[in-house]
């Protein structure tokens, strides 16, 4: 009897196969920390993309490429347009039908592709936009539309990756471990932003067009590499779930959305997130120039301000992770975060009225701490308040509210300051005055958030 080669090979390959496929064989109950750390790498790429867009390219486009500032602001606002669609992405991933039983991984992969694609064409689009080389004679619309497309792709990609990635991380762990995962994800985002800011700063010190291409395309390759590494074997090949998906009635977006906002306290939580994020977010772009112009800090010293703010935020994440693993109510921890922020901003304002550098530094640390506590606690509250099988939708809504509020906050902070500088009656007083108006607005928003977060009988967010 002849040896059945086909059956033999089939058996061997069937045994080997799953080892080389990008999904795990079984969904284990206990997910080791190394696997979560690996998954959290997607946040590093999101952080790098954010820094490149908001920080690095903002400067490079204006200073080195001589693109008009209003056009730059418009281009950088494009990714923000995609933020509301995060709710839709989250919902789609909740409802995703896959023969492999996958839910989040296909979306993270798609998002990664868009992010990569945007970065791949971005340097050339920017060079064409700035009229580099022969592009001077090219029609204007080529540069404009391709740069807009590049920014849109990166924005869409990072919003999709972050929404589906956070949902996947939440899926992977048990409920009482979720606060720790939220903390880990936030820390990795911060880590990615700080690290990439340092690296971009060093790499683009001596700007050349070639260097710009290298840096942006390097980011593209790094994005796809890190995300592939992060995704590998995270979601199980699950035939039972695939069958369930097949039999499930697909819920339309409107229905899921109405069910979500009908949750007691959900609308209030989202308004709270918008107010708080807006309040803390306005300071992002103003702390450094305020330290430089109003308090006479050097450039190196103002950079250290950001490090101090980040340190405060890290402490905030750590405290929130620990406290929220216990029985603490997430919304009240968020309120504490906003409460810490108010005296923080007050100290920052006081510093320009003779309070001195020490008061200012304490204020920066306190606002960082408050921002960390607030961000962590409100995200945890969102996850806890999410109905079952609607984690993606809830996280998408959180992301849409948070990203929009932060983006508008950053934009309005600059605009408000510039308007007050233009008004001689108000701004002629001192260099610190325009900044202090913005900081006062932040305090007002945080106080609104605190008032909103005070539990009223029967209106607290249900935590199940």
């Amino acid at each position, binding site marked *: 009897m002849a040896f059945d080669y086909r059956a033999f090979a*089939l*058996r061997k390959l069937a045994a080997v196969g799953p080892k080389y496929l990008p999904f795990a064989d079984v969904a284990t109950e206990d997910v080791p920390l190394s696997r979560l750390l690996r998954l959290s790498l997607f946040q590093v790429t999101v952080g790098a993309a954010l820094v490149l867009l908001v920080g690095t390219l903002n400067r490079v486009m204006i200073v080195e490429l001589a693109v008009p500032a209003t056009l730059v602001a418009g281009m950088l606002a494009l990714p923000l347009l995609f933020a509301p669609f995060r709710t839709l992405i989250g919902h789609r991933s909740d409802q995703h039908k896959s*023969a492999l039983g996958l839910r989040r991984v296909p979306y993270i*992969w798609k998002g990664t*592709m868009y992010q990569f694609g945007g970065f*791949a064409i971005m340097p050339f689009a920017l060079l064409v936009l700035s009229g580099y080389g022969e592009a001077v004679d090219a029609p204007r619309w080529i540069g404009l539309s391709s740069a807009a497309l590049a920014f849109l792709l990166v924005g869409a990609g990072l919003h999709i990756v972050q929404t589906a990635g956070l949902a996947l991380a939440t899926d992977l762990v048990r409920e009482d471990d979720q606060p720790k995962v939220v903390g880990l994800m936030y820390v990795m985002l911060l880590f990615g932003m700080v690290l990439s800011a340092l690296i971009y700063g060093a790499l683009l010190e001596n700007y050349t067009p070639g260097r710009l291409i290298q840096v942006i395309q390097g980011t593209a390759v790094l994005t796809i590499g890190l995300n592939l590494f992060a995704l590998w074997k995270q979601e199980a090949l699950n035939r039972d779930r695939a069958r369930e998906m097949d039999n499930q009635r697909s819920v339309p977006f409107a229905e899921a959305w109405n069910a979500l906002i009908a949750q007691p306290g959900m609308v209030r939580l989202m308004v709270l997130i918008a107010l708080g994020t807006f309040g803390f977010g306005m300071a992002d772009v103003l702390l450094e120039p305020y330290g430089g112009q109003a308090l006479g800090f050097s450039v190196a010293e103002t950079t250290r301000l950001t490090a101090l703010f980040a340190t405060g935020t890290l402490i905030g994440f750590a405290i929130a992770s620990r406290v929220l693993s216990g029985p603490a109510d997430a919304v009240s921890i968020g309120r504490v975060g906003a409460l810490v922020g108010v005296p923080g901003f007050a100290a920052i304002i006081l510093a320009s009225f003779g309070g001195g550098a020490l008061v200012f530094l304490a204020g920066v640390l306190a606002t960082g701490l408050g921002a960390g506590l607030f961000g962590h606690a409100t995200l945890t509250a969102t996850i806890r308040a999410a109905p079952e099988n609607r984690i993606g939708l809830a996280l998408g809504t959180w992301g849409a509210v948070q990203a929009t509020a932060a983006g508008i906050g950053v934009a309005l902070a600059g605009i408000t300051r510039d308007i007050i500088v233009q008004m001689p009656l108000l701004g002629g007083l001192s260099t610190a005055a325009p900044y202090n108006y913005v900081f006062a607005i932040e305090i007002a928003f945080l106080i609104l958030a605190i008032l909103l977060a005070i539990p009223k009988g029967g209106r607290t967010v249900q935590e199940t």
Partner: protein
Amino acid sequence: MSDDPDKVWPTGLTLREAEEVHSYLIDGTRVFGAIAVLAHILVAVSTPWLG
């Protein structure tokens, strides 16, 4: 394993599963292909080659 007519060689996936994996490959090829074409056009606009 080899008795199931639905499983395709050599991965042991069913036909539908294999088609889904394939669809990711196709999508990826399309997206990356379009990106590459666009990037080439943009480079050609700023620094033309071959003429």
